[in-house]
């Protein structure tokens, strides 16, 4: 683990294709900005999110997971 001042968390966002993924696109159209260490995984619906997906991501080293839909 890096020292606190250089710590860069890796964040995974699971997003519904129809709403939250679209909202992330809109952030782009509006030229908003957010840190680059957020990466989004598209789901057909957040109903498809299994607890296993979250656990696997954390197990693989994600520092944070958010679900938006």
């Amino acid at each position, binding site marked *: 683990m890096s020292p606190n001042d250089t710590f860069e968390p*890796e964040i*995974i966002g699971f997003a519904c*294709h*129809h*709403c939250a*993924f*679209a*909202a*992330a*696109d*809109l*952030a*782009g*159209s*509006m*030229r*908003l*900005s*957010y840190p*680059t*260490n957020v*990466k*989004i*995984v*598209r*789901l*057909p*619906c957040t*109903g*498809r*999110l*299994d*607890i*296993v*997906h979250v656990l*696997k*991501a954390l197990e*693989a*080293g*994600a520092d944070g997971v958010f679900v938006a839909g």
Partner: protein
Amino acid sequence: MSEDTSRRVGAALVVGGGIGGMQAALDLAESGVKVYLVERGPAIGGRMAQLDKTFPTNDCSTCTISPRLVECGRHPNIEIMVNAEVTALSGSPGDFTATILRKPTYVNQDLCNGCTACIEACVYKRAISEFNEGLSRRTAVHILYPQAVPLKAVIDPTTCLWLKNGKCVKTCMKACGMNAIDFDQQPVTVDVEVGAVVLAPGFNVYNAKLSEEFGYGRYANVLTAIEFERLLSASGPTRGHIARPSDQQEPKRIAFFQCVGSRDQNHKYCSSVCCMYATKEAMLAKEHVPGVDCQIFFMDVRAFGKGYDAFFERAKRQGVKFTRCRISSLKEVPATKELLVAYQDEDGELKKETFDLVILSVGMEPPKGAAELAKITGIELNTYGFCQTSPLNPVETTRPGVFVCGTFAEPKDISESVTQASGAAAAALQTIGSGRGTLVEEKVYPRELAVEGEEPRIGVFVCHCGNNIAGVVNVPNVVEYAKGLPGVVHAENIIYACAADSLKALPDKIKEHGLNRVVIASCTPRTHEPLFQDTLREAGLNPYLFEMANIRDQCSWVHSKEPEKATDKSRALVKMAVWRASTLEPIHETPLDLNHQALVIGGGVSGMTTALSLADQGFKVFLVEQEKQLGGNLLHLSSTIQGVDPQAHVEFLVKRVESSALIEVATGMKVAKVEGFVGAFKTTLVAVDSPIQRLIEHGVTIVATGAQEYRGGEYLLGQHPNVITQGDLEARLSENGSGVAGARSVVMVQCVGPWGEKEFYCSRICCGVAVKNALRLKRLNPSTRVHVLYKEMRTYGFKEELYTKAREEGVIFVRYEDANPPVVQATETGLRVEVAEPILGERLELDPDLVVLSEALVPRMDSGALAQILKVPQSREGFFLEAHIKLRPVDFSSEGVFLCGAAHYPKFAGECVVQASAAAGRAATVLTKQALTVGGVVAEVTPPKCTACLTCVRVCPFKVPIINAEGVAEINPAECRGCGICASECPAKAIEILHYKDRQIVAKTDAMLSRV
């Protein structure tokens, strides 16, 4: 309809690209009609695209409309013409020629890919943004809004420096990598042949400057509701931050003024939506600015739609204040720019309060250019300047073959506009008849290459998007990186992946490198995935062997200040896409036989209208009615609100139904059992009074079972002979008024219903019916005293005129409060009605000869049982519940099942007819298809793993999974929506969603986090 030998062109013209026009276009296109969708502005979407949220659910408007926009934009049967107007319409139903003037956009629409490079480069940045209602500025070359369809730039000639006075170095032209800017474009006139026309030009927002007393345009902090909507929007000028225009401070007190440009001397109608949108905006303001005080000044709260009263109550619970009054004056305090509002409250007391913001709830006017459009299309307008419609079929204009929908017909909300649009589409389909399917072509694709068992051979294409991506991200670096990823056999950069020449070259690249998976790193799959997937199909690859990495909208555009980190992220996103691509499998969609017959349940005006519409379109219909006779509730009606004879209309419908060769009527029967799914239903009908059964096979089901008048014992109903319902009064009035001859004084009591045991809902029609019958009583004998005791007078739309007329003719309207309802007592001589009059603060005592109760329309007693049989949901009130209150108002969430009429919610006969046509229009989109395509992203069960625990059966929102005869879960791909809830909940992991299998999802997170 004219004889079948006349020409039937299989195309339709839809004028106006708002939500109504879009719905009509989609329904027609889905039913095999070629559609020309003509929009005056630079993009479709209309007013709904400008809204932040929609009532009564406060759903995000953009989220709801965007998929429809995309669907319209990519539908092979829809040709969208923007910046265009209809200039002539000749011919007759089935065979019109429309002339369309396409004004120059100065951007070649075929070449432009919406990359926005020209917009960044444009030097004129002071043009008024129409989309943001003037609250922000835009460039001369612009895209109307971020989700616009078509997503193409247009140049506004009134502000472009080059077009205005030649004083620009044409920066846009230099910036455009596609050479799409074309200053030489000229107006073009095209003629199109169409079988029918649907007019959906929408409405014009009332110009609040004309209501000078409210200071709009003079006082900085007075805004219109549509402007406020833009302020609330996260993509609006303030990104959803509410600020006073005068000083950009957060407001502490906001006032909403209702009926600005409605219900006044110049607008003798109600705009129908303002009460609800103001309530919504007040609720949203409270969410945006915690603690803000919102006060709505109103005359009547017109919450007459499904779920609207509950929404109004919710707003009150959240602290929105409602004050019943008209405003006496509004003044700006010069020093603070606060607004001083003077009004008389209900107790007659003059009050003064200050507000930081005043929002004017502006009404709807006929659309700009309505008179000209009417002249061109040969239709008539009504006295208000809206489209003149046929009273019992409000989708019909005065010209046969030309139909209308949305607010051009009468002010209305989104769901009613969508309903009317589907109704207009059905009417157009009836006119087009045999022409359907003659002008649309199905695309033929080469045979699919078999890739099963092959090692992944992935091709990666990294798009520059001109400068959009390449200006931030080091594209060559990403390409080099991609080359080293496992399974990648080819990687290259591409200036515009979506340009026509790139798409043309892609199949060759696939062949050349033997690719069996394709990854494109560019923009968002929401807009571009279908395009690329189609190109894969042209190359013989299964479209599911494709993945996108969104390195523009979700990378270069949001990380433009960190180019190195953006490049790192692009690499990661490409890696994630490649890892997932390796796990992708082809998915085959299979055609399934479709039964082309419809079952209509209910033989009232709605059911008969649906049946006739479908039969006119050439589909066989079974119409089942529980009673011995067709006609339903309309049989008991003696006059409609527009003064049309309903009995003549019922007779006309029954005659047409009974003489139709395509409609089979089964009276005295009801539905006992339903099996199957869309395209293949099997329904058992059983006779009401005998054991006779019948099995019917059909492809779609339409529920049109109506509603019934509540007849509780309130106010001595059933105990005193002179206490009757509006329904009873209808019958008495039909006998030339002889039944009411002795009534010198009549009291009507509104809002009578089972409200002791049920939550109150507005029955929608009772105010209109009471006003209509009060006028009829007055007409029979002008000296009859009529009192209407009401809570809120909800004569929405043009019905407001009847309310005004009733008051002019001496009908006395007395408001009562919920807490203080009228009391009806029997006296020795007759009846005594007492009611507390809130304005005078006195108790009125009336001795009427007749008390007429406006009883609520309630769901039919047997609707719960039918809902169970059909496996469809009901609302809290017990009415059938549609799939989506705004955009799918006549569909059930189960595919192939539709609803219409009072079974959905109480409504007037004309509204039932519109909804019935709409249900027929929606049903036709299914029945038109030769076969159903089944499969794609759907659930798949692995039977040996299933333990029949019923979890999937419980969690599926669409009630699709069943436990079959083998004792394992079965999920019909024809019904599955692919949401994946069952797969995620299955404890035995026996269910997977194709294309979103666990390993296909985890591949992405693994890729992101692996250091390899």
